[in-house]
């Protein structure tokens, strides 16, 4: 059945709608931040005001167009949150976990991308602004983006706790522990508020490169596991069914833990 046809009739179409939206959103996000605006990897914190002006000038059109796209489509970040909240509701734990996660990540969108979009757009729109002010906008953009990871730290811990306490087998336990790994890397970004250079600066080897590597892996994994969840979901309450026989062979080897 074609994708469009299945979306029209499938009882799970609302789940597939949010899942495909999640994939599209993260793909767009990656392209905008890494390619269009070139704000990731981040600019150096040690730039002087004049160099900051140059940084904005180098990326003038990219910043304005790229972040305009995020202004249009950033709200679709809610789809991944909604799907994860749903996955927590399928667990045997209290609804408090699901609602905590939902609220936490909903508001996280503001420091998560709105601030950097606004700061960089305002910086790029007036290239002749006072360099000291451009420097401030540069700091505001990057620090509000990287330094507010505390929200995601707590969010990961909530999801981890829910997964480890869950008796319905919605996610494999190793993914619960991966949430802990992700939460610990969010801790690592905190020193970016303190250091202007070095491994713990907002673009440092530890605070950015290793951090993003872990986060990237984590994101790919949870998108994959959410797909598995939707496939296995029987839309009832109680234990989530095991993977269908063929799927277990095709799936990631560790995913067999769910089926077992």
């Amino acid at each position, binding site marked *: 059945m074609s994708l469009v046809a299945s979306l029209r009739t499938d*009882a*799970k*179409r*609302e*789940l597939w*709608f*949010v899942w495909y939206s999640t994939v599209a959103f993260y793909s767009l996000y990656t392209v905008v931040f890494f390619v269009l605006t070139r704000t990731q990897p981040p600019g150096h914190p040690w730039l002087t005001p004049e160099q900051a002006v140059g940084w904005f000038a180098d990326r003038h059109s990219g910043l*304005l*167009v790229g*972040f*305009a*796209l*995020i*202004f*249009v*489509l*950033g*709200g*679709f*970040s*809610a*789809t991944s*949150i*909604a*799907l994860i*909240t*749903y996955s927590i*509701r399928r667990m045997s734990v209290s609804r408090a976990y699901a609602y905590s996660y*939902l*609220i936490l*990540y*909903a*508001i996280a*969108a*503001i420091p998560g991308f*709105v*601030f950097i*979009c*606004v*700061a960089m*757009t*305002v910086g*790029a*729109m*007036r290239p002749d*602004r*006072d360099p000291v*002010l451009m420097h*401030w*906008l540069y700091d505001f953009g990057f620090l509000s983006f990287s330094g507010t990871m505390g929200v995601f730290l707590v969010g990961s811990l909530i999801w981890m706790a829910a997964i480890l306490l869950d008796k319905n087998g919605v996610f494999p336990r190793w993914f619960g522990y991966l949430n802990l790994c992700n939460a610990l890397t969010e801790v690592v970004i905190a020193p970016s508020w303190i250091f202007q250079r070095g491994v713990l600066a907002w673009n440092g080897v530890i605070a950015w490169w290793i951090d993003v590597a872990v986060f990237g892996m984590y994101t790919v994994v949870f998108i994959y596991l959410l797909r598995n969840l939707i496939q296995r979901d029987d*839309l009832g309450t109680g234990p989530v069914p095991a993977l269908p026989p063929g799927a277990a062979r095709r799936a990631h080897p560790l995913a067999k833990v769910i089926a077992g």
Partner: protein
Amino acid sequence: MDGSRVSRSGERAIFWTLPAVAVVWIAAFFLFPGFVPPMSPKASAAEVAAFYRDHLSRVRYSMILFNWFCVALIPILMLLVERMRGMAHRTPVLRYCVIGVAGAAPIAFLTSTVFWLIAAFRPDRSPALTQMCNDLAWITFTCGVPFLIALCVFVAVAIAYDDQERPVFPRWVARFNLVIALALVPSCFAGLTLDGAFAWNGFVSFWVKNVAIAVWIVVMAVVLRNAMDRDGIAVGVGA
């Protein structure tokens, strides 16, 4: 439909906050001297500083009003979410999507009021600083619409998936929401130009965007009232 299981008590009271909120918002909108007509992005720093000096009280009081009531639409959006319970969906994911954006949207608006208020707090600040605060406020206000666009799309999808004999909302409401979403899209590009129809004071980025939001509120209020009537919550006058 699970209206019988779920309590509907008090929903009427929430609904009738909407006209009160509308009055406050409209009053604040006209009180702020920078909306009618909208301030130009091309104004120099000196002109922006002069604007704040000359219209200090109006800026402050209008923004304080917005600041207080920017979250006022959240309860109304929750009434919408409650109507979505009656839709023929198998899971709550679309409700969660709406709740997610309902939380973020007012905070984006709040942030813009904060920047306007900061600009107005020390009118004798360096004009370049005041202009930057003003820019931050306007860009946040004009471009900070991703959550509203997503909200319209989620509502449209929810209605499209509401496959039952008597859907909660009529089908045209879905198309209406998509039109509104499209109407909001151009304003996201306001940072690209300092004049013309797409600048933050331009016809498309200011008037089309804000009128679209106002129309959405009015139309959805009527549609919501009809849906609430069907759910057995009498919302007419004198009910």
